[in-house]
């Protein structure tokens, strides 16, 4: 073994610096993953039993129109060329036209995406604010009632269908108690008051200084966001607990205690500092999962985000919209994964 390592070092061509090599490897693996994602959506689009020509030209198109569309879509070309066309379209942000409203899919996605972003962001913030302290306390007081509570919270979160919990939430907090606004983003009297800037109503109404709208928007978002927050809380608290347990049993913790540090300083100053990078990875993953997990939540709460968009398109066989939405969600998912991976490498010297 030692011999072969020496040989590599003596190679005439200067070896790449390790950091450069690792960046190149990461970049190429990102490229391959994204290519694979697009290949899968391309294949799904091909095996569809729906004739793309008929869905554009209409059922009663004449033979000439049919052939014209057929050639325009490039369907006479070999599959590999078609895939290349698809790639170059997607790279330019062109997902084709929606068959439902004859608008570009990319425009639709840009319109609905802020709603999902707003929901998932609020959800993940709730998950962090509640989940991290819960996990830390559960680990520090192992076996206490807080630990048991954290366990039950996680177990229920892993076992409960999110759409059902959402329905129950609507029933109790909207139907019976009347504490929150119903489905949708705004009450009917508040629509179209605030000009769209970011597309996130909480932000837009705050920027415009329309606090009545803000309050109404908040009463609508609080329930679905809490729902998503609960699921990320279950995951984040569980992971925090297991990271903290690992640290608390380490020898440096014992040393710190022996030299007389307060328990608070040991927990937050030493143990918690060491899990921050791992924690950010978990939070990034949980955020990615929320962006996806909001599909069912959006349906329950009639939230006009990307999940509702994909599902509506699906039920009306609008394949361009479905695949466009899938690609966008998939790309965000991949990017967040890469982000957490990179963060890990940059900040945690042990990851080498």
């Amino acid at each position, binding site marked *: 073994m030692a011999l072969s390592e020496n040989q590599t070092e003596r190679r005439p061509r200067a070896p790449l610096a390790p950091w450069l090599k690792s960046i190149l490897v990461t970049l190429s693996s990102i490229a391959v*993953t994204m290519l694979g994602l697009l290949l899968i959506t391309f294949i*799904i689009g091909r095996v569809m039993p729906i004739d793309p020509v008929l869905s554009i030209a209409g059922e009663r198109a004449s033979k000439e129109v049919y052939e014209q569309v057929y050639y325009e879509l490039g369907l006479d070309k070999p599959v590999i060329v078609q895939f290349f066309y698809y790639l170059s379209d997607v790279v330019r942000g062109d997902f084709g036209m929606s068959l439902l409203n004859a608008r570009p899919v990319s425009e639709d996605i840009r319109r609905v995406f802020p709603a999902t972003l707003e929901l998932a962001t609020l959800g993940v913030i709730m998950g962090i604010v509640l989940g991290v302290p819960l996990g830390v306390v559960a680990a520090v007081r192992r076996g206490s009632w807080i630990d048991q509570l954290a366990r039950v919270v996680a177990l229920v979160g892993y076992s409960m269908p999110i759409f*059902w919990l959402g329905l129950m939430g609507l029933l109790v907090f909207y*139907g019976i108690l009347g504490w929150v606004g119903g489905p949708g983003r705004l009450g009917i009297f508040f629509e179209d008051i605030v000009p769209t800037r970011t597309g996130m109503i909480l932000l837009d109404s705050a920027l415009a200084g329309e606090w009545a709208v803000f309050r109404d928007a908040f009463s609508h978002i609080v329930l679905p966001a809490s729902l998503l927050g609960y699921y990320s809380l279950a995951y984040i608290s569980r992971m925090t607990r297991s990271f903290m347990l690992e640290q608390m049993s380490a020898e440096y913790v014992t040393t710190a205690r022996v030299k007389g540090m307060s328990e608070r300083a040991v927990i937050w100053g030493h143990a918690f500092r060491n899990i921050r990078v791992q924690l950010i990875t978990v939070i990034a993953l949980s955020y990615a999962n929320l962006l*996806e997990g909001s599909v069912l939540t959006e349906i329950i709460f009639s939230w006009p985000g990307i999940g509702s968009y*994909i599902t509506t398109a699906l039920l009306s066989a609008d394949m361009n919209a479905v695949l466009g939405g899938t690609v966008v969600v998939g790309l965000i998912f991949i990017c967040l994964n890469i982000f957490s991976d990179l963060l890990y490498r940059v900040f945690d010297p042990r990851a080498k």
Partner: protein
Amino acid sequence: MSDATTWRAWLLTDAPTSRRHARLASFYKGWLSLRGNTMAMVGLGILVGLLLMALFAPYLAPHDWKAQDLGNRLQPLGSPGHVLGTDSLGRDILSRLIYGSRITLYIVTLVALIAPVAGLLVGTIAGYVGGWADVVLMRITDIFLAFPRLVLALAFVAALGAGIENAVLAISLTAWPPYARMARAETLTIRASDYISAIRLQGAGPIRIITRHIWPLCISSLIVRVTLDMAGIILAAAGLGFLGLGAQPPSPEWGAMISEGRRFILDHWWVATVPGLAIFTVSLAFNLLGDGLRDVLDPKDGGIE
């Protein structure tokens, strides 16, 4: 000295006399330690109950699950003849729930057969063959892992068409990559061990080594993972059913039942509530059993969780 104690002694022996004896003994010891875990036994009990319910559905169900009775629609809980009430077409919810357990078990069994086996195949081949095969297979695995699962399943069902079988296929397609990764990691450690070199020197071919000597060692961690994944699979299937992409009406699939009840949630809450509780109970049972199994079969992870 009754018969039972000798059996027990035979099973708990430290010096097994045959391969079968050793296997039974280790199985029995695992069972004993699982039996000590109350929550795992609760989970197991619920699942056995579910199995019995599915088996004896025709005898247990008080009514025909598809018999409509429009005069008796949306009866509340505890109404005479309909303990759990009736749905919007006057069908008995309890009977539908009982028959629905068959669909749940059907989906879970199929996915549990397809996804781990596919993952095991891909993972062991990648790990054992190594080189280019490893790179290519693991890249494909990573691509599937990088995909958001529910959205991928949605896109697949969109392409294949709605229905239980396609839902199973879509869920399996999104569920296999973690198994492949796990099987590959196990294979890599096993491959380097001395006994594999020994049987290779005896002339065993790669297929024999993989099927007879590597797979059996991957099984226990695979079983734990499958049990813990079951809850997620049930939730995914229910989600697809809820969206109208899984089981089609009038099938009493639990997710589809919630979807039917959704329209009346504010006035007739039980129609959607009851099947949701059923889904929750079953996936909770799988989670409890999976936690217990992990402690028995995979003690190395037990300390952290």
